[in-house]
């Protein structure tokens, strides 16, 4: 057990190093950060001086080692653009992204399960056809188009909901939440829906497929034969067995929602880590870009690590394999 975890941890560290290396390599060569930072009047001498101050004149590998060394201490340098510590910037903006990600996951989970059950139980109903078709459209439309569409309808035309930002926030220690104010909650609705659509469809289709599969199994047929009520069969027996893969998928998806909220955050000017990343790309703010990529990789690595360890605990076959040194 310990050996397995140790090996998995070592793998994770390697993955992180590779990601850090790629992040650094790519971002180091996407453009010249000084071009965006210096003013029109800057002279070559000013450029050289700034290059030296930022350490951009150092050979690549030295810059990389400095980067990794600092990153291990949670230190990602100073943002060229905002001139604040990058780790601080990411921490400041993380609550916004996490709240958005959780809200959208909850919408996706509830909506996906309800619609999935509905379409599974009423396979041939007209409404099922409509839902299935709409879900296809929803998945094929790009996120920014859905976002702009929602803004147009609910903010510009109906004026029900805000079109941008996070509304008023309340500070609970270092966590600044928008969930406790009316304007914060209203601001959350449109971006959360936008971000949830893709997942919602995914979960809905998963639930539907699983449910249909379960409904065909013997124990459901026996339950029917025993004369149990439809309700008890559908929700007591079928649904319970459907939920295992759904929960796994939702958990794994949470990582990608946090990581890829970029477009939704940009469209709604949501002050999270995704929009921080986009704004940083525009001016080649290398420290922020590299830190963000490392951060996202860390989320995935940690989630996968936890999942692997859980499987290991749950599934005895894996344990046997580990013992024999497979």
């Amino acid at each position, binding site marked *: 057990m310990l050996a397995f975890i140790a090996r998995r941890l070592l793998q994770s560290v390697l993955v992180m190093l590779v990601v850090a290396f790629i992040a650094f390599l790519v971002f180091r060569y*996407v*453009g*010249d*950060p000084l*071009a*965006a*930072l*210096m*003013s*029109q*009047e*800057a*002279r*070559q*001498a*000013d*450029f050289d*001086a700034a290059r030296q*101050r*930022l*350490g951009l004149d150092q050979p690549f590998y030295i810059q990389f080692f400095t980067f990794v060394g600092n990153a291990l201490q949670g230190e990602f*340098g*100073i943002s*060229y*653009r*905002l*001139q*604040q*510590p990058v780790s601080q910037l990411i921490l400041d903006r993380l609550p916004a992204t996490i709240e958005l990600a959780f809200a959208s996951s909850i919408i996706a989970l509830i909506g996906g399960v309800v619609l999935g059950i509905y379409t599974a139980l009423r396979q041939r109903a007209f409404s099922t056809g409509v839902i299935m078709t709409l879900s296809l459209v929803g998945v094929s439309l790009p996120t920014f188009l859905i976002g*702009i569409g929602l*803004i*147009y309808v609910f*903010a*510009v035309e109906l*004026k029900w909901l*805000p*079109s*941008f*930002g*996070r509304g008023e926030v309340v500070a609970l220690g270092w966590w600044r939440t928008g969930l406790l104010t009316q304007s914060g909650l209203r601001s959350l609705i449109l971006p959360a829906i936008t971000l949830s659509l893709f997942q919602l469809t995914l979960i809905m289709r998963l639930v539907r497929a699983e449910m249909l599969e379960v409904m065909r199994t013997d124990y459901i047929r026996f339950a029917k034969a025993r004369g149990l009520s439809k309700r008890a069969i559908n929700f007591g027996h079928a649904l319970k067995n459907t939920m295992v893969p759904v929960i796994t998928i939702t958990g794994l998806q949470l990582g990608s929602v946090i990581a890829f909220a970029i477009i939704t955050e*940009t*469209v*709604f*000017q949501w*002050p999270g880590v995704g*929009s*921080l990343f*986009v*704004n940083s790309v*525009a*001016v*080649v703010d290398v420290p922020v870009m590299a830190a963000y990529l490392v951060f996202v990789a860390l989320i995935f690595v940690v989630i996968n690590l936890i999942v692997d360890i859980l499987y290991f605990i749950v599934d005895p076959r894996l344990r046997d394999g580990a013992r024999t040194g497979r």
Partner: protein
Amino acid sequence: MHSSLTRIAAVLIASTMLAGVANAETIRWARSSDALTLDPHSQNQGNTHTLAHHIYETLVGRDNDGNLTPRLATEWALKDGDDTVWVFKLREGVKFHDGADFTAEDVVYSMTRAKSEFSNMRQLHAEVESVTAVDDYTVEFKMVGPSLIYPNNLTNTFIMDKTWSEANDLDVVQDFASGASNYSVLNTNGTGPYTLVSREPDVRTVLAYNEGWWGEQPEVTDIEYIVIADAGTRVSALLSGEIDIVQDVPPQDIERLSNTEGFKVETGPENRFIYFGYKFGDEPLKSSNITDSNPFNNPLVREAMELVLDRDAIQQVVMRGQSIPTGIPNPPFVNGWTEELDAYPAPDVERARELMAEAGYADGFTVTLDTPNNRYVNDEAISTAYVGMLGQIGIQVTLASRPVAEHSPLILASDTDFYLLGWGVPTFDSAYVFNDLIHTKETGEDAELGGYNVGMYSNPELDEMIVSLGVESDETVRNQTIADIWEVVKADRVLLPVHNQVLAYAMRDGVTLPVQPENQPNMTTVTFE
């Protein structure tokens, strides 16, 4: 007893007076990107200055027509008998937000700081030898030589409080590499019309009217400055009533917004021209199929290239009317601009073909055009349009379009044969254009002039005249020299100007914000109906 009664009476009177004036008007103002910092000397950048102007003040201001106006200095003149010294008389009775008095010491401190190593403002004050306080309200700037237009360089250099700055360790201008945090990045103490209430970089900055401000009380008392990067969302926020004023309106939305009931768009010329530049010199171009000569070095080719540039078509089609075609790389408010120089030839493809044949390039040639695609309004589309026009005379252009962060290194290294660039003239004087774009590019440690003379144009005679502008103390002579230089620059076709950009601010009806040619709108100029 008596005194407390008077106090109550005074409070009552004061409160009724307040009620009369203080119709608290909040303006919610959105633009696409935020100020980089609140340290007033760290960055020489438009967005940063725009926000700073509301909190801090400069000695000299500039009105919307480009004229210098008194601000913290009430008057300024060259010293009698010494044309290398500028004397500034300071405004009396001005207080910083924390209540400290504004005096000459603060000016000396701020100028020293603005000239210090990490300051992005220091190149504007390179000609200043020393700054001294003569008395509390008089400051003398000793220049290296006569410097007639120096006050123009002061319009974005902000004055900080010496005591406050020293108490907060601000002697060194914010230096990003060191990692040491600087108090003034998020905290302010200026003399300006608004005080900082809160700041969330990239999200929202809130300002409130400074009751102790020396100027006339503006109609706007509270400012919510909001950053919305996405153009669609920015315009939507205006349409949905969440925002009052929007900067950086995309040209394609200008017409739609002007036609939408309840909204209007204020437009005006921006102090920024867009131009194409060529590589000069006999060296063959690196991106051309002509390997034994440089076609751009031939004046006939440059003339032909100007004759196929249809500026009016670009204005109508690419810019949707939102630009001012121009024949000279110099915006109209800038000293040295004349209508005559601004005239440009009508397109004449026939004549252009003849010129190309005469120059020995009847079959044309190939070349690469480097263009940014996210810096100026429709920059890539302008280049695409011109590529088509050049095709008419056989010049086959490969378009290399890049984000500005990748385009700029090419420009700085002069690593381009043919490029598009924009240029603003913050001093409102032609010398600024000459110094950077026309003067022979200097190299080495003390390189000062020709920094953006990407095409390596070189004319020693002009160089001499350009340098003389910096030290000429007779205004008439100086202006004549400027006119003479423009004459040569235009005749030589050193640069191929396309147009001046137009600025557009969109706002809801009932609010008016006049366009500021440097795109630094001032909320004290907002009026309500």
